[in-house]
């Protein structure tokens, strides 16, 4: 690849020399490789952003390549680094953050890229709870937030009406949700509630939203010697409640990822906890009247509702490239966070705007008035200044820990285990992986 790039480079010089005989304005653009994980509509939107960037200037050319889903893209980046053929920019999902952070020598922090390139960069322009996930405890930004979303409650108003429940009913707390689910279930619904991304919504976000630690050491931000802590009273109460709902037929489990989305979009389920980025799909497919509500919280828990945390991905600059190329990286990252590009991205996808200015612009465009509920995620994220418990999570081997949590939650939904036993077991198993991660990254 390197060889090929050199070859292509010399080819370019050759071509430039030939062209130079006729014109003097030709010069080669520096290539910036960008590996991402988006397909479908999101893939098209990314391609559009890249195209806009490339045609807006002539010094740099960004080449975007799709490398599979989130896990596969991270693996491709790691394998490429080991073979010394890493791209300039790699998209890494939020659970891979700790892995990337520990890889000093493999990545070049964004604040450094910006400083070295002499690019204008104001870390404070980014929304606190988005930025917090990707900055050090000193406030230095390591990777650029790209697509961020947060969980909200999706409501099928028609299904509520059919069950004789006022579609505008108060669903702000889990206590009230329980009452509604009981009514909807009694009216004969097979799926009063379902969820996507169970660990992210019902444990990670639940903890942050109630200002309760998910793990020790500020959820891992303060050190790799962190231990999981989601087997405390709040989380166990919540999971046990959902387990009881599952037993009573008030909660239907559809799968570990977003399988439940198909049921909700088909109109089978009344309530659905899912990412705010589910907006595009639900708007396109739902043939019923739907609404977005803030994620419910447990009334009576001190500090709730705090703020929810994000999911999604950020862009990492990989180490080992030339200064000229990093200048291209800095220019492209700045372009992505510019107001117009961010506002459009936010409105097209339902992902959060990563800068406050892009949010303002969307409001000024009148988008929130035309699409009620699309600002709920933004409000929910920015309502309170993030605390040590709600800044985010930084845990090694987290993709696998989520797998363990999924397994233990399944045991609760099927009635094989009670919530306390399952959470204790998940914490114990997860801690073993954290210790291995700590050992690997000494």
């Amino acid at each position: 690849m390197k060889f090929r790039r050199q070859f292509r480079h010399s080819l370019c010089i050759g071509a430039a020399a030939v062209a130079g005989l006729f014109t003097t304005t030709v010069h080669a653009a520096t290539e910036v490789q960008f590996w991402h994980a988006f397909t479908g509509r999101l893939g098209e939107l990314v391609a559009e952003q890249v195209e806009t960037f490339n045609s807006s200037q002539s010094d740099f050319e960004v080449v975007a390549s799709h490398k599979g889903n989130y896990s596969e893209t991270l693996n491709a980046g790691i394998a490429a680094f080991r073979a010394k053929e890493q791209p300039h920019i790699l998209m890494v999902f939020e659970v891979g953050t700790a892995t990337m952070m520990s890889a000093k020598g493999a990545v070049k922090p964004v604040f450094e890229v910006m400083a070295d390139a002499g690019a204008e960069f104001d870390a404070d322009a980014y929304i606190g709870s988005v930025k917090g996930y990707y900055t050090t405890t000193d406030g230095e930004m390591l990777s650029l937030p790209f697509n961020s979303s947060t969980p909200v409650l999706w409501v099928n108003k028609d299904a509520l009406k059919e069950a004789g429940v006022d579609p505008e009913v108060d669903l702000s707390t889990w206590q009230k949700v329980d009452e509604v689910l009981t009514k909807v279930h009694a009216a004969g619904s097979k799926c009063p509630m379902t969820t996507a991304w169970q660990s992210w919504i019902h444990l990670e976000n639940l903890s942050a939203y109630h200002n309760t630690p998910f793990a020790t050491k500020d959820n891992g931000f303060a050190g790799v010697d962190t231990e999981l802590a989601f087997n405390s009273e709040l989380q166990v109460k919540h999971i046990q409640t959902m387990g009881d709902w599952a037993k009573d037929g008030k909660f239907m489990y559809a799968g570990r990822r977003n399988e439940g989305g198909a049921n909700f979009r088909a109109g089978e389920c009344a309530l659905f906890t899912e990412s705010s980025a589910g907006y595009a799909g639900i708007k396109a497919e739902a043939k019923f009247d739907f609404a977005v509500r803030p994620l419910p919280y447990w009334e009576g828990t001190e500090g709730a509702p705090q703020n929810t945390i994000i999911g999604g991905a950020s862009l990492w600059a990989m180490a080992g490239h030339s200064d000229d190329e990093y200048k291209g990286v800095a220019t492209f990252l700045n372009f992505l966070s510019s107001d117009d590009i961010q506002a459009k991205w936010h409105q097209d996808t339902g992902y959060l705007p990563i800068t406050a200015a892009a949010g303002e612009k969307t409001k000024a465009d009148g988008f929130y008035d035309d699409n009620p509920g699309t600002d709920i995620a933004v409000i929910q994220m920015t309502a309170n200044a993030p605390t040590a418990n709600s800044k985010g999570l930084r845990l090694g081997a987290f993709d696998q820990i989520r797998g363990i949590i999924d397994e233990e939650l399944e045991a609760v939904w099927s009635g094989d285990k009670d919530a306390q036993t399952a959470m204790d077991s998940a914490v114990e198993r997860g801690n073993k992986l954290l210790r291995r991660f700590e050992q690997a990254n000494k």
Partner: protein
Amino acid sequence: MEKRVTFKGWKLPLLLIFPQLLISVVFFFYPAGQAIWQSLFIPDPFGLSSQFVGLGNFEFLLSDQYYRASFLTTAIFSILVTVVSMVVALFLAVMADRLIKGAGVYRTLLIWPYAVAPAVAGVLWLFMFNTRVGVVSWYVGLLGYDWNHVLNGGEAMGLVVVASSWGRISYNFLFFFAALQAVPKSVIEAAAIDGARFWRRFFTIVLPLLSPTVFFLLVVNIVYAFFETFGVIHTITSGGPQQSTTILVYKVFSDGFVGQDLGSSAAQSVVLLVLVGALTIVQFKFIEKRVHY
């Protein structure tokens, strides 16, 4: 009298086996050696540093009750896949062997599924048994059975066994069918004249004559169930619900490529290498004795 051809000197024979040796070294001994070497370390994912832990990775694995449970899961899964795919294939081959008309069409149709990649086969079966839109789950729902392999471990295991066996039946069918054609007609006719019925002829004459094929398929199918069913499990259950379909090879993948824990992943590969090697030796030593060539 046995006739033997021998080479003079050793250059030509060495040259002749060289390609095979080269392939074995490059594609087998070298990676296996690497796996053994890596299993002694805990590296970070990017290969920036690694620490020597001796047999620490193996200790970590064997002290993990979920890893130990995965042996049992693998045993159940492999036995089921092997038995189901061989018994069904043999039955179909015996039936096809009796056909006079349309044997060609029947044969071709039966071999077809072998051309389907395991991951694609996984998706096909997943669609049929999807708890929401699946044809089969809808039908069993009508019969009053609530199919939900997302939460029910037994159903999930059944589904991955069926999906893994399906493509394999074609492969086994091919070998059984060829072997059946090679059974001398005169022997069967002689037995028929003696008054032996079809199934009696099958069990006392045909099956013993098929034993080399049965043995070969037994070895090949067990290796298949151990290593190549990964795609099916990945697409259908990802090892769940809980850990009911996490077989050893799937754990190698998920620890190595989801967890980025290459040390543990390498150690698991070594365990698998030893296990399957031992299994194959056992098969050759004890089962092959009962085979009549």
